[in-house]
């Protein structure tokens, strides 16, 4: 490997020596080496002969003149102008298209963040407005804590639902608290309501109408109360009954579970409502953007292809 490298360097030096392209110092050093190295001298002579042969390569005669005519220049000028315009349009369309894509990505990214922030802010505002509501949540938690071992199946089912319910905003909890009243009345009738039924009942209760799905249970005698009062009052009811009747307490726990389910269900709906108008607005603008982007892309491709075509045909 080292010998090969040395060999290449030697050849380069000898070649440059033939062309008088070495410095005086390099030339003197090489002459000294040549005086003592027969192999190096032989290589030099081989190179000299090759160079001599190449230097005496016969000249080739051209068969025509290459002078330019005005038509030739004009034709070429027009053709090159067309090529340059095509290139310019293609590049401009490509750049605009890229900007639009980048802008869309950036805009939609920040829009998404803004929408998320808006939803979070609204939730925070609602929570701060209704400070008294978390008490009902505490009551619900107490209920669940009282009877964990009696119905393991229910506890297991409630576990994943309870966590998000605790983090839910206060207005959701207020709604759920209102649901507890009809379910208590439903307990009396021995019917376990579903989450949807609980929601319907809660709505009807808040509106002061009688519960349609209460079965044989007695209609509530109390007048509709504000959410806060209802929540506090009715929270105490299942626990009071639980001290006497275990089965009723179990039902109360099940109701609390449905409350938690409801809160989990209602939360995303409200978030969707808040982000809804922003998404609709962006959806409306998307077709126009797509049309413009498509047009730019077509322009870039067509004019780029035209430039390539002109370049290949022009001689």
């Amino acid at each position: 490997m080292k010998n090969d490298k040395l060999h290449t360097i030697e050849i380069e030096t000898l070649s440059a020596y033939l062309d008088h392209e070495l410095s005086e110092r390099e030339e003197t050093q090489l002459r000294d080496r040549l005086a003592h190295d027969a192999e190096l001298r032989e290589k030099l002579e081989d190179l000299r002969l090759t160079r001599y042969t190449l230097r005496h390569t016969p000249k080739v005669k051209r068969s025509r003149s290459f002078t330019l005519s005005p038509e030739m220049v004009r034709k070429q000028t027009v053709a090159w102008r067309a090529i340059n315009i095509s290139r310019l349009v293609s590049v401009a369309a490509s750049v605009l298209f890229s900007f639009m894509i980048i802008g869309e990505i950036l805009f939609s990214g920040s829009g998404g963040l803004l929408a998320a922030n808006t939803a979070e802010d609204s939730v925070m505002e609602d929570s701060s407005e209704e400070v008294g509501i978390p008490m009902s949540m505490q009551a619900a938690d107490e209920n669940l804590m009282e009877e964990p071992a009696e119905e393991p199946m229910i506890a297991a089912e409630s576990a994943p639902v309870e966590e998000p319910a605790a983090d839910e905003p206060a207005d959701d909890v207020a709604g759920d608290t209102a649901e507890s009243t009809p379910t208590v009345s439903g307990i009396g009738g021995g019917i376990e309501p579903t989450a949807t039924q609980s929601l319907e009942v809660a709505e009807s209760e808040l509106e002061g109408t009688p519960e349609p799905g209460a079965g044989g249970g007695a209609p509530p005698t109390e007048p509709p109360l504000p959410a806060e009062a209802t929540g506090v009052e009715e929270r105490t009811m299942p626990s009071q009954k639980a001290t006497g009747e275990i089965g009723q307490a179990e039902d109360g726990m099940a109701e609390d579970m449905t409350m938690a389910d409801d809160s989990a269900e209602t939360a995303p709906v409200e978030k969707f409502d808040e982000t809804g108008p922003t998404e609709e607005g962006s959806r409306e603008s998307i077709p126009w953007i797509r049309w413009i982007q498509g047009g730019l892309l077509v322009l870039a491709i067509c004019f780029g292809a035209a430039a390539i075509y002109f370049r290949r045909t022009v001689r």
Partner: protein
Amino acid sequence: MQHKQSQFDELKMVEYALEGDLDAFNRLVMEYQDLAYNVAFRVLGERTAAEDAVQDAFISAFRKLKSFRGGSFKAWLLRIVTNACYDELRRQKRRPLVPLQPTDSEDDEIESPSWLEDPGETPEETALREELSQAIQNCLNSLDNDFRIVVVLVDIQGMDYAEAAETANTPLGTIKSRLARARMRLQDCLRGFGELLPEIFRLEGERISQ
């Protein structure tokens, strides 16, 4: 003195051509067309391709004349010619062409085409010259494009390293190494054509070695 006068004329012609004087530019074309054609022919190894490349190069030179910032007009022009040759080589790579051998009216191959003929030499000398020319061209064709251009500029056209570097738009050190390696390869190749090489060169070689 004559060189200075020629240089002065050349610059004047460039100035006139810059003002749009096509006749002035055509004087420059007439001055350099033989050199440009020989470079293109040796690089491309084919007459028609070389003509196309040279014509393209002159048109391109006229269009780009504003980019000439002084210095050696010859080097600037030959750079455009070598670029046109590279374009032609790329085109040939995309669409390979079978070179047409020159034929006479009876469709027989002409041994000594008119563009190789010299009225001042005997048929034997013409044959000798053509033989050498073909042998060298075959060896040049076996080189890579970058190596071939350096050999053509330095050994065939007699440029110095600096001028070749400017023309090929390549560092001087690269020119030096490419030339040395190309000469070594050509040496091996031409040795294979030993019997074909004209006697005068063999004798010259013997004389030099002595």
